[in-house]
């Protein structure tokens, strides 16, 4: 298997093709994480009391085995009001404009100028007729407040497995910004590929901007633990709904304050294979090839836009 970056076509005559992408491994055999921040963001006491850290042998909620909803039993999501704290300020509300309509989704900062989201938030042949035309990004949005300003982007990248095949296991993308949204270069998520043993039973946090509740203007967060992993997906008992696509599914390791994204939230219950016999939500799993691709998007000044077209 090989992942290649594919970017929304932009007019840029004479630009050379980027170097070929790294070759991914088939399974996660070793841990691979993007570099830690030089000065990791501190977590406030309220955030420390809220987030979940490390592993747990038991789930926080005991889901029942009936129904097919992305909200599992009672809605356990909590509204985050103080969105200027870490990690909430690194989560972005997205307003997406395309040829076939407008949408809302969620993204998260991996560098001050790179937002990672789901592939279907930037490219969807069936829903958008191809690439989004523009995306408006508001980090830390809290209703009408935009504490770090608002950016409008027109440069996006995804991977070949999403753009060519709409393969849900590779439903990821990058939005390239023209200017930093946050002044602090360390206010970013890390991205990590972990082995099955490391991930299973790890506590996980999922946040985003759903259409309801909150009308796409309020940040919500929920927690539980990772129920299962497959080579390309992680599955968790965490409430989500439409608008949270692209949101970070992240962990905190014991003793660390910088969150590590292990999955990009994309699908509700309907995305869980029947063979798993679980009512859980899921995210494309971060694998080493994805870490390498995100590093490449992060380290390229223009994100590699203009490779095709």
């Amino acid at each position: 298997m090989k992942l290649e970056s594919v970017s929304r076509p932009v007019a840029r005559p004479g630009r050379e093709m980027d170097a070929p992408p790294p070759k991914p491994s088939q399974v996660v055999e070793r841990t691979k994480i993007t570099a830690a921040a030089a000065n990791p963001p501190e977590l406030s006491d309220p955030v420390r009391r809220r987030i979940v850290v490390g592993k747990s042998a038991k789930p926080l909620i005991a889901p029942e085995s009936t129904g097919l909803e992305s909200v599992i039993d009672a809605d356990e999501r909590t509204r985050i009001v103080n969105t200027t704290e870490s990690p909430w300020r690194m989560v972005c509300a997205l307003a997406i404009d395309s040829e076939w309509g407008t949408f809302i989704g969620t993204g998260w900062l991996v560098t001050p100028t790179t937002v990672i989201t789901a592939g279907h938030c930037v490219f969807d042949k069936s829903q958008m007729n191809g690439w989004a035309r523009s995306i408006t990004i508001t980090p830390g949005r809290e209703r009408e407040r935009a504490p770090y300003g608002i950016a409008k982007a027109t440069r996006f990248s995804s991977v070949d497995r999403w753009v060519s095949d709409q393969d849900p296991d590779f439903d990821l993308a990058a939005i390239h910004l023209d200017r930093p949204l946050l002044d602090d270069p360390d206010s970013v998520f890390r991205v990590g590929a972990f082995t099955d043993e490391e991930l299973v039973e790890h506590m996980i946090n999922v946040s985003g901007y759903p259409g309801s509740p909150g009308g796409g203007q309020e940040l919500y967060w929920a927690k539980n633990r990772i129920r299962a992993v497959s080579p390309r997906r992680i599955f968790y008992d965490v409430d989500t709904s439409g608008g949270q696509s692209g949101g970070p599914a992240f962990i905190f390791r014991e003793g660390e304050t910088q969150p590590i994204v292990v999955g990009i939230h994309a699908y509700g219950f309907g995305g869980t294979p029947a063979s798993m016999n679980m009512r859980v939500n899921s995210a494309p799993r971060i694998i080493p090839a994805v870490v390498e691709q995100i590093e490449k998007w992060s380290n390229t000044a223009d994100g590699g836009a203009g490779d095709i077209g």
Partner: protein
Amino acid sequence: MDVRRILHTGRVVHHNGRPAAGAFVWVATGTAPTPEIAVVSDEKGYFRLALPPGHFEIRARSEGGQEGKAEATAGEEPLHIEIEVSAPD
């Protein structure tokens, strides 16, 4: 590999038939994978929603917070999905 999705149309209206512009529409439940993105209805309340074959509950929320839902069984033929939103009881 992704199951082929068909683009369906729909409209969000208030109980008096007035179009609900700027409403969010999303798949709440389903028998097949759908992305957790939310569609925004246009100025006349219309929206487009791509669905794979299956049975779905589609929900909508107006700018004023009124909510409604509709059931849809999607196949190969495009559907028109009408959703009426109203204040909670």
